[in-house]
Structure formats: structure tokens, C-alpha cells
């Protein structure tokens, strides 16, 4: 016998048939079905295999708390593992496979693990696999060998490696009141808050609003509860101040009421609409929050409680009322409370036979008794189920007398036929969000449940979340919570009338039936009651140790159904009350969230591209582009057939022989303005700027507060109170923040303004012996001769009608100029310069040639100013003013920074005429096979067209003292070893004749 769809009932759309496949087999279901309900309707009860013992498992729940029925959804090559079948809405073309089984779900060799039985108890792996102390498998090898197999047996679903083509998005929302959960409590709260004018968001993880009202079979306001819920939703939908978010799980409660929610926008569709994201990651900043998240029903722990066909009573009720499904024909119930009696009544009305109601209690309420009486089936009070029978599906149960006072079983075990066993072990309020802030939930003895902790953030709770398990209470609390969250003192709304059987919400304090056989606490992780007791025995008695030792509650469901029973069993072993054991810490997410959703709009484009004004020109003119932070910069402009080295050598050589031009727009540029600007620069640069004349620029060096070099660059004095500071591309942001901090926090009395103008200016550096002629041929409005434009001078003029600012400064060591124009004119000016340069043989050059020329000149950049070097290490001591204090001046001379043994900047020349590598080390000993005793490393390398040699800059102990000596480059990682000569870092034109012209 198996579950089936009843002829009528439920709220699926029987007119719409939907086709899907499960493990390759085609099935049909109806619109509104979940995979679980659709498969049940088709008589399928085996959904998956458990984690450790590979036990066959069916579906336990009808919702997000499902531990067993996990499947993998396929979209071509794209796989999505571990999706609860209970949360998966079917659509045409849905393709699902089962997981953690080999070769098939029905026949799984991994099930042999069950034979391990007591050998594979909690934590067994800590006690073995240490392996031999000698031999090839000694040490970690043996463990790694075993681990290989353990890893393959573990894990649940398989993730794919194909890129997910879906789109993910984020959304920021603000509201006065966020209501989480749309059961009777949530709906009331949303309406009350909306009525009082608040901006309200109502989030519900299910596709349908209404929570328990959708399946309770109760009557609210004279309507079927589900009908009442629809009416409420229609009312809310019509309002401007309410936003309804279905399929939206609020999963994180972060500081200051920042709520994280996941909206599954298109998971239920065959294909998303144009531009529609699959998931939307909401951050909702709510003035206050109403938590109306309901409660989860708990199973009972007894031998065989994991057999397919065992299901929570409320889940069965839901399958019947919402999906028109009978989970069995002959249904038994095993309960410790009244709530499940309603399920018996529901199933009976839907056409199932009630085999028996087994209740651990001797006494039950009149309402429950009444339901039992009308239901046929036996009522076995003071009894317990001690075993289930059957193979991959339940065929019967065994029952014994049970003494509520001491948990003892007695009498003969009796057999009863049943193809479905509904269990109910009481209810656990869904307090996860409230508990994420870290406070401890509070145990309620009467309800046998943890209730929410005292709020540390701005929320109010309502309904089953608060342990108010009747609908009437949920409505009352919802109304009150809505009003209070909206800050309203009173509304005119009255609480709707509820008609429902007067069931007693208090369960008997029974969690486990101790009989022979594996009794599961955590279904997914196969944690048994005996595992909990083993943990106890070995001293893992703290609830956190219990969790970590047994993995109780660490599965994909995070113990939604299993934690409380596990805690109860530990409490029993300890002989302590449950609250003394306490719960483990609640953490986000409340339910698993796709990583794609969290990456949101950054999925596919982790960082924005930053482009210079001339970017398109570079690309069109053959540049190979580099990433430099967020920027893109030309590496080389290769000609057909050229290697990178050939290209940069040609570019550098041409520049030194004729002229070259390079895009320097990425340099950080900061406008430093105000009457105290010069004073400020004196404080932050190691050298003097107050003495700089208007219309001149100066090279400057900055240190960090700790005396280490921070950045270098030129600063131009454009007016008395107006400076343009340039920084290296990489450090622009860092320098800006450093300066802003000093001005805002340390010296607010200084009248200085800093503005990032990096993007205002396009920069082109043009250098080489013909550079001045080229400029002269295209610049109007100013002369560029030595008198008008001396070294470090600045002039203003025009190029091809666009205003430009030109400073004569040089990084390449050539006669060179930086031409700045408004960024919007950048391409125009660049093209004019390129045109002007043509007759002179000028080439555009990229970063490689730039690097080559700077290495030849011995200038430092980021590879040397790496946050570990001092000005002295870099040979920049000449820039350290003795006339004034500056940032870092008191720290730079401390013993560790002044140590003679520190590495210092030098040049190196490969004596074997082979290329050098950045990151290679320098050693004194010619010992290639045993690398040791490094005395420094190479920071930058190139083939120097001017020297005709492979050269590099290096930071080496002793520095200058080693000039003229030999050493070895030792680069075992790239198998490069060879002799080098250590020389001055000023390889080329050390006197600077060329740039002074």
C-alpha cells in the first residue's frame, strides 16, 4: 500500500498537469504541488539516503524542516544539490535526481555501513586511522588514504562544475515594520501595522501566505481558515504601504534590525522572465520586526522511527488539506500530545483508515477523546511504539504498554498493520531569528519547548513563535504585535472568531522510547539516541560538545526537528533538567541560502572595471591590457609576431631614441586646497613643500605613522593655496584616507580641503629626445622651451583646442612631460599627440616599457615600497628633511628600522645573460641544490635595451656595500640559478643628463 492522491480536496490545480522526472523516471503532478507532494501522489515514498548509514528515507515533513527527502535539481550541467523535496515547487521540465546512493536509490551499496553498527558510533574516527608508525603509510599518509574513502562515502549531493548562468540580485528595502511569517499571527500583525499607516513588508517563505491557516481545517471569522487568509492577503495587496514577499525566507537577523531575506523569484518557473533574477537577496532595514514564524512539530525517538512512511502528524494534515494527498491508507498515530488528533480526523475524513492512535499519555483531553471516538481505529492510551516493520516502507508497528512516570515498557509487544505512521512529539517554536543575537532561549516546562529569548533588538513576537499554539491566541497576539511594532496605541480592529476543537497544547514530557534498535534523533546525520549516550559517557556533555562530537543538528536542516529531542536525551543521561543543558547557538542562515544570492549582482563581475579616458584607443591600437587594481592599463602595444619582450624592448628603445607616450591617467590625483595646504604638505611629506614656487612641481615621499615608506609622487603647486598631488595608482585610496584622517581627526584646525580629482584629468607622459619638439609642434598658447618650461616647471596651453596643463617631469629618465587635459578631452589630446609624434617616430608604450625604463633609472615603485621598507632601505634618505617633523619622522629611526643589516635597494645584472625573475632570491653561495641563506630578493626585472643585459632591482642586505660584488640569483621555484653582479640601482644615465636636456 502506498500514498495516493484523493479524488477531491487540496488546493492544487487539478486542471493543470505538470511533467517532471525523478531519477530519470517521468512523473506528473499538478500546479501547486511540491516535489514531495507530487511524488507521494504517485506512490513514491523512498526519497533519499541518510548521511552515514545510507538508510532509506522518505519524507518526514511538509516544509523547510525536512531532514530526509533531499534531492538534486539538474539544469543541464548545472546541479543544485540538497534541496528538500518539500520546498521544491514542480514545473514543467523539472529534472530531479536522488543523492548519496550508488548505484541506485533502491539498491545502495553504501547501506553496508549499517553493518558497522556500534563500531561506527559517534566520533569513531578520532579513535582510529592513526596508522603505522613506520613504513610507507606512516604519519599522515595512512589517514589520508582512509580519508579518501571516508570523504567519498560522506557528503550528500554532488555539486557541479559548470557555471550557473542564472542571474542573482540584491535589493535594499526600508520599512517601519517587517512581519516575518504569514500565518494567522503574521497576517493579523501586518494588517494592524498597515492600518496604523506604517510601511509594512510581509515575508513568507512558502509560496502561499496563510501559514497553518492553509491546512488547519479550522474556521476563522465564519470562513474556512484558508479562505480567511486569502481575504486578508487580498486586502493587504491592495495597499500602497504594504509589500508582500512570498517565497521569501528571512534568514538572518543582523545588528540594528538589518534583516537578510532570500526571495526565490523564479525557482518555480520553467524559465525566468527577461531580466528576472533567480534569487533576490533582500536586506531589509526595519524599524521594528514582528516575528510570527510559527512552530515546528517534533518527531519522537524510538526504534525504526526513520523508516519511510513515518511522517509528522502536521505534515500529513498538510498533505491532505493542501495537496489532497493521503500519505497512507491505513494510518497509525504515535503521539504525546493532542494536536495530532486533528490529523487523525482530517485523514479519516479524506478517506484513510485509522489503524490506531498510540498515545503515551494515560489521560487525554475531552476534545481529543471525542476525535478518537469518532475516528474508528483503536485508541491505545499509555502505550508506545517500540518498533516499525517493513523494508523500504513501513508495513506495521509494534506497540507496548508505556509508563509515563518512568518511561518503562511492559507487557507483550503487539503488532499492528499500518502503511503510514504519524508521529507527534510536541512543538518547538521557530525562535531561530530571535536567538541569532546570542541570548539564550527560555525553557517552558508546560509546553516542553524553548521559547524566544528576551529581545536584544527591536522585535516583538506573536503566535506559535511565542508558544501560543491556538489560532485564537495567534490572532490576538498578532494584532497586538502589529500595533506595537507600528508604534500605534490602539486600533479599531477586533480579533476574528475562531472555531476549532479545544485541544490541549501541552504535551507529555516524553521524547524517547527506550527499546531495542536504532532510534534516530538526527535523521539526516544518523545520530541515534545511543550516540547521545556515548557522548555523555565520554564526557561530551556540554550541549556544544554533544553537537560537535555526534554532529547532532549539524546537517542541512540544522536540527530543526532533532535538537530538542537530543537535548532531552542528554538531560536525561545527566539527570538534569533540560534548561540546564540548554540549546546550541543559533546562527544565520535560518535555512540554507544559495551562495549566488549572497554574491548577488557581483556574481559574474566581482569588481567593477575602471577605465582611463583613452581605454578604447589602447584596445583599438593593439594594446594587451593588464589589470592594475580595478584599472586596466596597456601592458604592451604588440606588433604582429612580436613577443612581449620584443615589444617592450622596442617601445623602450624607441622612446629613448626618439620618443614615446604612455597613458598615466591612473595616477592618483588629489586636489589639496586651502590656506594651510602648504603647511599640511610639509607635515605629511618627508620633504619640504611650503618652499615650492607656484608653477612648479616637486617629487615627494610620504611615510606611514610607523616610519615605513607609504607612497611617492609629484605634487604640483598650481596656486598659492592650490596643489595637485599625485600618488601611485595602487595607493591612491590609501593615501587619500591617510590624509583625510589627519585633517579630520588630528589637525581639524588646518584649513585644507582634499578632493579626489583622479578622474578629472587624463594624463599622458611623453618622453624621449624628441619629446620637446613634438610638444612644440602641437601645443599652442605657451612655449615649451627650457626657459618657459624648466625641469619641474608647469605651463598651461592648448592642444588641438583643448586646454592642457603640462609639467616637465620624468619617470623614464628622458626629457619628458606630463600632459594633463580634462578627462573628456583625453582621447582628443592623446590622438593629437600621437599625430604630432608621427613625424618623429614616437610610439605609444605600455607598462612593461615603463617598468623597463624606470628600472634602468633605478626608480622605486610598489614592488619596492611594499609596506616593509624604509626611506633608507630605498636609498631615499636624501628626501628626509631635518628641518621639520613629518609623519613618521619620530618612528623611522627606531632600532629595528635603522638596523644596518636591513635589506637595501641595489641593482643586479645577470652575468649569464639569461632572464631574471621578480621574486627570485639572492644568495652568496654557489649552491643551487640546497637553497639557503638568502640575503635578499629581486623586486623587478627587465631586459635593458640600453645596457643590452638582463637587469633587475633588488633589496639586499648590505646594499651599497655590495656594489661591484658578485652573488647568485637563486630561484628554485623557477629553477633559475646563476651569477649576478650587484651594482648601483642607477643603471642608466645616473647624472640625469638626458632629462635635464
Amino acid at each position, binding site marked *: 500500500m502506498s500514498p495516493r492522491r484523493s479524488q477531491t480536496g487540496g488546493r492544487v490545480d487539478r486542471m493543470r498537469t505538470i511533467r517532471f522526472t525523478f531519477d530519470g523516471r517521468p512523473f506528473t503532478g499538478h500546479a501547486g504541488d511540491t516535489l514531495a507532494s507530487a511524488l507521494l501522489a504517485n506512490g513514491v515514498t523512498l526519497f533519499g539516503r541518510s548521511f552515514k548509514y545510507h538508510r532509506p528515507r522518505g519524507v518526514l515533513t511538509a516544509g523547510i524542516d525536512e531532514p530526509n527527502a533531499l534531492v538534486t535539481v539538474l539544469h543541464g550541467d548545472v546541479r543544485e544539490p540538497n534541496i528538500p523535496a518539500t520546498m521544491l515547487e514542480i514545473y514543467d521540465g523539472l529534472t530531479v535526481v536522488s543523492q548519496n546512493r550508488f548505484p541506485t536509490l533502491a539498491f545502495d551499496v553504501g547501506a553496508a555501513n549499517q553493518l558497522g553498527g556500534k563500531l561506527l558510533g559517534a566520533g569513531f574516527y578520532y579513535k582510529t586511522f592513526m596508522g603505522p608508525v613506520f613504513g610507507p603509510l606512516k604519519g599522515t599518509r595512512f589517514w589520508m588514504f582512509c580519508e579518501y574513502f571516508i570523504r567519498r562515502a560522506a557528503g550528500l549531493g554532488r555539486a557541479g562544475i559548470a557555471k550557473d548562468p542564472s542571474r542573482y*540580485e*540584491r*535589493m*535594499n*528595502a*526600508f520599512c517601519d515594520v517587517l512581519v516575518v511569517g504569514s500565518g494567522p499571527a503574521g497576517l493579523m500583525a501586518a494588517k494592524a501595522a498597515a492600518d496604523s499607516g506604517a*510601511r509594512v513588508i510581509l515575508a513568507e517563505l512558502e509560496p502561499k501566505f496563510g501559514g497553518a491557516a492553509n491546512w488547519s481545517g479550522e474556521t476563522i471569522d465564519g470562513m474556512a481558515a484558508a479562505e480567511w487568509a486569502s481575504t486578508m492577503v487580498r486586502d493587504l495587496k491592495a495597499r500602497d504601504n504594504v509589500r508582500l514577499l512570498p517565497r521569501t525566507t528571512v534568514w538572518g537577523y543582523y545588528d540594528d534590525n538589518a534583516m537578510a531575506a532570500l526571495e526565490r523569484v523564479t525557482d518555480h518557473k520553467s524559465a525566468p*522572465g*527577461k*531580466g*528576472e*533574477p533567480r534569487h533576490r537577496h533582500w*536586506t531589509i*532595514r526595519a524599524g521594528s520586526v514582528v516575528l510570527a514564524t510559527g512552530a515546528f512539530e517534533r518527531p519522537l525517538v524510538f526504534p525504526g522511527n526513520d523508516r519511510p512512511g513515518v511522517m509528522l502528524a502536521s505534515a500529513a494534515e498538510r498533505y491532505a488539506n493542501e495537496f489532497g494527498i493521503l500519505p497512507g491508507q491505513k494510518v497509525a498515530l504515535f503521539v504525546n500530545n493532542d494536536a495530532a488528533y486533528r490529523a487523525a480526523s482530517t485523514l479519516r475524513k479524506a478517506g484513510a483508515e485509522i489503524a490506531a492512535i498510540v498515545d503515551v499519555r494515560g489521560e487525554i483531553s475531552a476534545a481529543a477523546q471525542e476525535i478518537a471516538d469518532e475516528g474508528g481505529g483503536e485508541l491505545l492510551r499509555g502505550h508506545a511504539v517500540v518498533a516499525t516493520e517493513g523494508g523500504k516502507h513501513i508495513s506495521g508497528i509494534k506497540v507496548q504498554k508505556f509508563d509515563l512516570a518512568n518511561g518503562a515498557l511492559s507487557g507483550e509487544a503487539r503488532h499492528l498493520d499500518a502503511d503510514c505512521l504519524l508521529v507527534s512529539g510536541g512543538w518547538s517554536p521557530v525562535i531561530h531569528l530571535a536567538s541569532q543575537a546570542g541570548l539564550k532561549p527560555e525553557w517552558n516546562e508546560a509546553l516542553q519547548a524553548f521559547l524566544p529569548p528576551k529581545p536584544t533588538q527591536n522585535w516583538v513576537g506573536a503566535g506559535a513563535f511565542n508558544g501560543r499554539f491556538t489560532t485564537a491566541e495567534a490572532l490576538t497576539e498578532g494584532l497586538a504585535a502589529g500595533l506595537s511594532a507600528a508604534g500605534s496605541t490602539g486600533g479599531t480592529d477586533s480579533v476574528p472568531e475562531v472555531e476549532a476543537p479545544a485541544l490541549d497544547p501541552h504535551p507529555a514530557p516524553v521524547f524517547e522510547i527506550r527499546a531495542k534498535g536504532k532510534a534516530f534523533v538526527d535523521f539526516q546525520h544518523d545520530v541515534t539516541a545511543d550516540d547521545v549516550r556515548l557522548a555523555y559517557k565520554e564526557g561530551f556533555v556540554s550541549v556544544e560538545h554533544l553537537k560537535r562530537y555526534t554532529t547532532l543538528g549539524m546537517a542541512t536542516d540544522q536540527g530543526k526537528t532533532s535538537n530538542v529531542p537530543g537535548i532531552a536525551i542528554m538531560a536525561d543521561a545527566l539527570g538534569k533538567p533540560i534548561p540546564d543543558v540548554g540549546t546550541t547557538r543559533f546562527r544565520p542562515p535560518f535555512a540554507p541560502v544559495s551562495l549566488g544570492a549572497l554574491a548577488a*549582482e*557581483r556574481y559574474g*563581475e566581482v*569588481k*567593477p*572595471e*575602471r*577605465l*582611463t*579616458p583613452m581605454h*578604447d584607443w589602447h584596445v583599438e591600437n593593439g594594446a594587451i591590457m593588464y589589470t592594475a587594481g*580595478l*584599472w586596466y592599463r596597456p601592458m604592451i602595444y604588440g606588433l604582429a609576431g612580436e613577443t612581449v619582450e620584443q615589444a617592450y624592448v622596442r617601445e623602450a628603445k624607441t622612446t629613448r631614441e626618439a620618443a614615446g607616450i604612455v597613458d598615466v*591617467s591612473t595616477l592618483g590625483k588629489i*586636489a589639496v*586646497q*586651502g*590656506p594651510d595646504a602648504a603647511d599640511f604638505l610639509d607635515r605629511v611629506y618627508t620633504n619640504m613643500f611650503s618652499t615650492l614656487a607656484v608653477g612648479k612641481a616637486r617629487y615627494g615621499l610620504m611615510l606611514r605613522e610607523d616610519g615605513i615608506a607609504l607612497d611617492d609622487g609629484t605634487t604640483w603647486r598650481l596656486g598659492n*593655496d592650490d596643489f595637485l598631488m599625485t600618488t601611485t595608482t595602487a595607493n591612491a585610496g590609501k593615501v587619500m584616507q591617510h590624509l583625510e584622517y589627519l585633517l579630520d581627526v588630528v589637525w581639524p584646525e588646518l*584649513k585644507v*580641503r582634499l*578632493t*579626489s*580629482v*583622479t*578622474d*578629472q*584629468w*587624463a594624463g599622458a607622459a611623453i618622453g624621449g629626445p624628441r619629446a620637446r619638439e613634438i610638444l612644440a609642434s602641437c601645443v599652442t598658447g605657451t612655449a615649451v622651451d627650457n626657459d618657459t618650461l624648466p625641469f619641474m616647471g608647469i605651463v598651461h596651453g592648448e592642444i*588641438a*583646442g*583643448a586646454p592642457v596643463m603640462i609639467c616637465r617631469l620624468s619617470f623614464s629618465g628622458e626629457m619628458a612631460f606630463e600632459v594633463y587635459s*580634462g*578627462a*573628456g*578631452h*583625453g*582621447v*582628443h589630446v592623446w590622438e593629437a599627440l600621437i599625430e604630432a609624434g608621427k613625424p618623429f617616430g614616437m610610439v605609444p608604450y605600455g607598462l612593461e616599457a615603463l617598468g623597463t625604463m624606470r628600472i634602468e633609472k633605478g626608480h622605486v615603485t610598489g614592488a619596492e615600497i611594499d609596506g616593509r621598507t624604509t626611506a633608507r632601505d630605498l636609498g631615499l634618505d636624501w628626501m628626509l628633511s631635518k628641518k621639520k617633523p613629518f609623519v613618521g619622522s619620530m618612528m623611522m629611526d627606531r632600532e629595528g628600522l635603522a638596523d644596518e643589516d636591513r635589506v637595501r635597494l641595489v641593482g643586479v645584472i645577470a652575468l649569464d645573460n639569461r632572464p631574471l625573475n621578480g621574486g627570485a632570491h639572492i644568495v652568496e653561495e654557489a649552491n643551487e641544490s640546497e637553497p639557503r641563506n638568502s640575503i635578499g630578493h629581486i623586486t623587478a626585472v627587465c631586459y635593458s635595451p640600453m645596457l643590452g643585459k638582463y637587469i633587475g632591482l633588488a633589496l639586499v642586505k648590505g646594499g651599497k656595500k655590495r656594489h661591484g660584488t658578485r652573488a647568485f640569483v637563486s630561484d628554485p621555484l623557477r629553477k633559475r640559478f646563476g651569477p649576478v653582479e650587484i651594482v648601483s640601482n642607477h643603471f642608466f644615465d645616473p647624472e640625469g643628463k638626458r632629462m635635464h636636456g
Partner: protein
Amino acid sequence: MVDQLSPLGPVWRPGSHGNFAAGVGVVLSETQPGSIVQVAAWPGEEKSLMAVIRTVAGLALPDGAGGGVFTEEKAAFGFAPGKFLVVDQAEGLFATLSAAITSEVGTVTDLSHGRTAICVAGPKAEWVLAKFFAIDFSLVAFPAGAGRSTVHHDIFAQIQRTGASQFDLYVFRSFARAVWTALCHASEEVGYEVQ
């Protein structure tokens, strides 16, 4: 004078895009003002600075953080303590303001090339912008004329509301293409038109 070249280049594709069957959710455009100028007052000089803006640009800035005004041609708004962005469709505002604002009052910085102005308008403007910025775009929280400084990851933006469902964004020019691309992408769902 030479015209400024738009940084949007190849990603600027006029026309309707995305899911516009049910109407266009947003209209995206680059407003290309001739002048974008930052003016900043020293503490205590804010009022005199605002007076200068009124005389020179004819824009009467309201008091209060983030206050702003706009006309067809011009706009101004506060975006940081003592700091304002003044925008003019015409060129030359930097020169005028520099002449009028003495160093006792504050500083003037030309950003006409350094910032790109993008206008997002239409019934879904708030929805689209909310995908990027963690600020409240509702009219009550962000009234017309007002300015905001905010950020989307690495991209800093100054935003002025220039209508019930219209916003002008000022972003660093080097990021403009990335911003534009992202805006288009995010607008697909609601249908967008590039003007």
C-alpha cells in the same frame, strides 16, 4: 571649444531594452552637464558660501544637510558638511565660482570632467536604484531636490532627486561605464529605454 567625449562609449545603446512589453520601467540617460563644480566652505562660512551660489548661479540652497535645488539648467545640493555640488548645463561655472569664492570662504574644485552624470527616471527608478544603494529612496525619506552621498561597493556616488521618480547620479568618470552597464543590467527586468 572641444566637446567632452562620453565615457560610456560602446555600452551606450539607445532604444528600448529588456522586458518592456508591459511598459518601460526606467529611462536611462547621460545628462552631460558642461559644468560640475564642488564648492566647500570652511566651518562657519557655509552661509556665505550659499549666498555666493545664489548670486552666481541663481540657486537658493535650502538649509540643512543634503538640501538641494534644481532647475532645467542648473542644480545644486549639499553632500557633505560644508560641501556642495553645483551643476550647470553650460560650461564656465568653475571660473565664475572661483572668482566669487575667496579663500576665506572656501574652496572651488572643478569636476566637470571627473564626474559623469547619469539620469535614472521612471516608475521603477526607485526599485532599480535600490538594487545598488543601501539608502531609502522613498519620497518621504529622500525628497525632491535633496542630495545624498552613498556608495555601491567600490563606486562612490552622489545622487540628487530631481523629480518624484527621477534621480541624477554623479559617479567617478572612470567607473561610469561599469555603472551604466550595471544599471542597464538591473533595469532589464522592468524594461528600460536609453535616451
